[in-house]
């Protein structure tokens, strides 16, 4: 009998700890499929963040280093400088990457550090139970913006891809989403391209993935996907910001 669906080799056969309807699991699977297809499991070293995915190293079969909050790009820099021929990627959420770790991500990109970042943006802090993130939308209610995010009090959401694409060292910058199958496939293509950019030693690559957090948004999983589409996508437009035509191996 022909196998039509199986667990990617790069993922361990373990139940994930994420909440029902959370899209981290989809993104993990995408990364694992890319690792399988590029046959780089034995040469890939991931860096885990602080946030809901703090222990995602437990789910992958490749080597992993767990980093302090926001520091994954610096940790990845250290690893990559020791093993320049290995694939090194960071997996970071919006609080990790765009608040406490802003300096580290900006400067890893500035240096053109030859690593890949998968940036999971769900517009909220999940792990610590629903606080306002740097990417929280205007008027979005969170536990630390209970009356909605107001620009005069909380300032504006940060657009990471737009910001990083101004830097010369960031050579591949793309924003995708995982709210439907078509976009899941586009996300996979983008992450694959990002790893290929790294293989070609072109510089820093990042894929921002719009993602859901049903638990902390207080919306059921199906409606969360719609909420993402209706609220996040208008503010965070999908598409390639840089490096679309970059030649890779």
């Amino acid at each position: 009998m022909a196998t039509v669906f199986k667990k990617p080799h790069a993922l361990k056969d373990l139940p994930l700890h994420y909440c029902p309807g959370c899209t981290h699991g989809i993104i993990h699977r995408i990364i694992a499929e890319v690792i399988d297809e590029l046959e780089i499991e034995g040469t890939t070293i991931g860096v885990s963040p602080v946030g809901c995915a703090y222990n995602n190293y437990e789910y992958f079969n490749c080597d992993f280093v767990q980093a302090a909050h926001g520091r994954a790009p610096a940790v990845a820099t250290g690893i990559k400088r020791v093993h320049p021929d290995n694939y090194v990627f960071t997996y970071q959420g919006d609080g990790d990457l765009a608040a406490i770790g802003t300096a580290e991500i900006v400067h890893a990109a500035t240096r053109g550090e030859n690593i890949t970042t998968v940036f999971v943006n769900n517009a909220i802090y999940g792990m610590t139970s629903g606080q306002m993130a740097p990417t929280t939308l205007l008027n979005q209610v969170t536990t630390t913006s209970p009356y909605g995010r107001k620009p005069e009090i909380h300032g504006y959401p940060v657009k990471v891809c737009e910001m990083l694409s101004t830097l010369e060292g960031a050579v591949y910058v793309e924003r995708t989403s995982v709210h439907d199958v078509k976009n899941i496939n586009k996300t996979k293509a983008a992450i694959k391209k990002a790893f290929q950019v790294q293989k070609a030693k072109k510089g820093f690559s990042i894929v921002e993935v719009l993602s859901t957090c049903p638990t902390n948004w207080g919306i059921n999983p199906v409606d969360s996907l719609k909420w993402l589409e209706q609220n996040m996508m208008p503010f965070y437009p999908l598409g390639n910001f840089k490096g679309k035509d970059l030649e890779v191996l």
Partner: protein
Amino acid sequence: MSEKLLMKGNEVIAEAALRAGCKHYFGYPITPQTEVAHYMAKKMPEINGTFVQAESEVAAINMVYGAAAAGARVLTSSSSPGISLKQEGISYIAGAELPCVIVNIVRCGPGLGGILPAQCDYFQAVKGGGHGDYKMVVLAPSSVQELYELTVESFNIADRYRICTMIMGDGMLGQMMEAVEFKAKEEIYHDDKKWATTGTKMQRESNDVTSIYINPEVLEKHNLKLQAKYRQIEQNEVRVETYNCENADIIVTAYGTVARIIKNVIKSAEKEGIKVGLIRPVTLWPFPTAAFEKYAETPKAFLSVELSAGQMVEDVRLAVNGKCPVYFYGRMGGMVPSQKEILNKIKEILK
């Protein structure tokens, strides 16, 4: 031994690290240790090594964390305010049991303070400046030759125990030139670092480097393992110089820069018929408690002389354990006590 060279302390630290097989340096400029970075920036490209000027000390220590996790010998250097910024990373390094070397060319604080010699970061270094029950091995050289020897050794200790070691000096040691003789070949402790994240090459299970243990039973077990390692280090790695202590009227205890001054004081005191002994801790942690126990009932008093408001003196009191009075004399803010004022203090105590 090769021929003697006249070199700056900071440059000797960098050269020693290279000789110890360190090919990765991450740092951020701060006076008075910046020559370490200058030297590395120049030398690393010649040996196909890494020099990264990081965006901050926070980033630098996390690069160290990454490089150490990847199995490399790695160095960062900074000075007091920068070391404060590194505490986050140091705690993670301790938790993840990664070997690395950190140089702290201490300046006077608090805050931005000043850049002249001080020993005001003793507590931060030996009591755990970051969060969590952890220890670093802290080495306090007092000459340029010792900066060389202890820097090489610090890499061996780090690898042997999977621990962070700190070389703690001050601006005087970092900036001064003295003769140094390098060995033709260093004694390097080799560890295969089977735990390192080097890529599985599809030949082994994945290696994960982490400091997070959400399960309390697992974390306590991990903590007990760390503590057992620290006890082992206390057994094996104490380094101390004792000088002139037999039948001493008073034993002065001092480390680093101050210990040099005490050696002059010993000579001048001798001329006045006072026998002054010296216990110089070379490892500040593990603290050389046994040396103090040995001589606890010899002198009329102990005197701890420090460039601080009195930090190491607390460990001296614990080690002497009430068997002898313990006095303190210190200067702060970059002021270094003269021989004369220390001798006056000794005479005042013995009066």
